[in-house]
């Protein structure tokens, strides 16, 4: 049964309960009127007793129905809250699906980086951020793309060694870093960002996404953002790594092809 059908079913039970309660109240009133009428018409004591018993029975039934009515109302509230939670989950899954679909839709390195930037702006809600890649020969992390240098100058020139400072440590340990501005205070600097999430393929860190400022309308990261951000970073890492390998292999192929062409023409 779908959520909507369940919601309709609840509403149906709810309305039936309401109608039944109203009907009981009307019946109750009718009987009270009848008792009063019989008393004035000096009905027999047996008849009076029968009507009194019926009245007690109906009053009890009314009380039970009202109790059930309240219970259904509570269930309905729970259901409405659950529905909102499921909506949010659906939203996040849709975001994740679209983001991963886009990330793996190309093997062009620049295009992949462009898609990562779009995701960080539009899904995470970042205004100033940088994407750093780790040079495995020099063990240095360097900016390869950024956005919002007007609000955080120097984003294009970030360079830090593996294991040094906040960024170097995130790359070394593979653990995400988040700072709560309100609680921890202190200015956000190039070395101390709002968030740094490693681009990891299993345990192998290839770079970082570093966030310095969120969009004006986004006050802080929400609980679900942390999870979403990590999942997106994992997809981004694979996409960046694959496209990088592809570009390298393309270059090598071109070199080999040129060499073969040269050999063919000279022989």
């Amino acid at each position, binding site marked *: 049964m779908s959520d909507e059908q369940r919601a309709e079913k609840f509403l149906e039970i709810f309305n039936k309960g309401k109608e039944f309660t109203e009907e009981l109240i009307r019946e109750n009133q009718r009987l009270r009127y009848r008792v009063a009428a019989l008393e004035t018409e000096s009905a027999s004591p047996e008849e009076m007793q029968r009507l009194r018993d019926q009245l007690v029975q109906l009053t009890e039934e009314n009380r039970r129905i009202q109790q059930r009515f309240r219970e259904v109302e509570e269930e309905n509230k729970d259901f409405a809250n659950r529905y*909102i939670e499921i*909506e*949010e989950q*659906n*939203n996040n899954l*849709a*975001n994740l*699906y*679209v*983001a991963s*679909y*886009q990330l793996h839709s190309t093997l062009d390195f620049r295009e992949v980086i462009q*898609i990562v930037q*779009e*995701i960080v*702006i*539009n*899904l*995470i*809600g970042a*205004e100033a951020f940088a994407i750093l890649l780790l040079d495995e020969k020099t063990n240095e992390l360097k900016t390869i793309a950024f956005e919002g240098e007007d609000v955080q100058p120097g984003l294009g020139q970030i360079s830090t060694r593996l294991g040094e400072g906040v960024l170097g440590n995130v790359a070394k340990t593979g653990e995400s870093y988040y700072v709560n501005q309100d609680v921890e205070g202190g200015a956000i600097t190039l070395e101390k960002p709002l968030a740094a999430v490693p681009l990891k393929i299993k345990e192998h860190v290839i770079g970082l996404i570093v966030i310095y400022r969120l*969009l*004006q*309308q*986004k006050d802080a990261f929400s609980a679900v953002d942390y999870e979403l951000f990590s999942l997106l970073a994992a997809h981004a890492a694979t996409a960046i790594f694959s496209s990088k390998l592809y570009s390298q292999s393309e270059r090598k192929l071109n070199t080999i092809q040129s060499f073969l062409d040269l050999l063919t023409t000279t022989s």
Partner: protein
Amino acid sequence: MGMENANFLVVEDSPTMRQLISFSLKRFKNAKIIEAVDGVDALKKLSGPEKIDLILTDINMPVMDGLKLVSLVRQNAQLKNIPIIIITTEGAEEDRERGLALGANAYISKPIQSSHLIKTISELLSV
């Protein structure tokens, strides 16, 4: 105007956002989604054979931005009644006021919540 069989025009330069918005719009039964990459492309699609029921546009786009698009649509006798939703990273109150003053029916700041977008569209299309 019903919410079923509606034709939506999504104007957004980011392919990721276009896909994300289009994905959300699939909630509407038999919805047809037409995509445009900027304001000029949107005007071309609006003058095409498809009757557009609702426009969802970004602000910051190359060639022609979303605010210019809203303004041109509102000045066009044939198009002026199409509901427009602005979806943007610009979250300042003055940006919102400017967008609405130009004639947009709703203004949604990114990152978008699909449920909020669906609710806004449902309200606009059920009028």
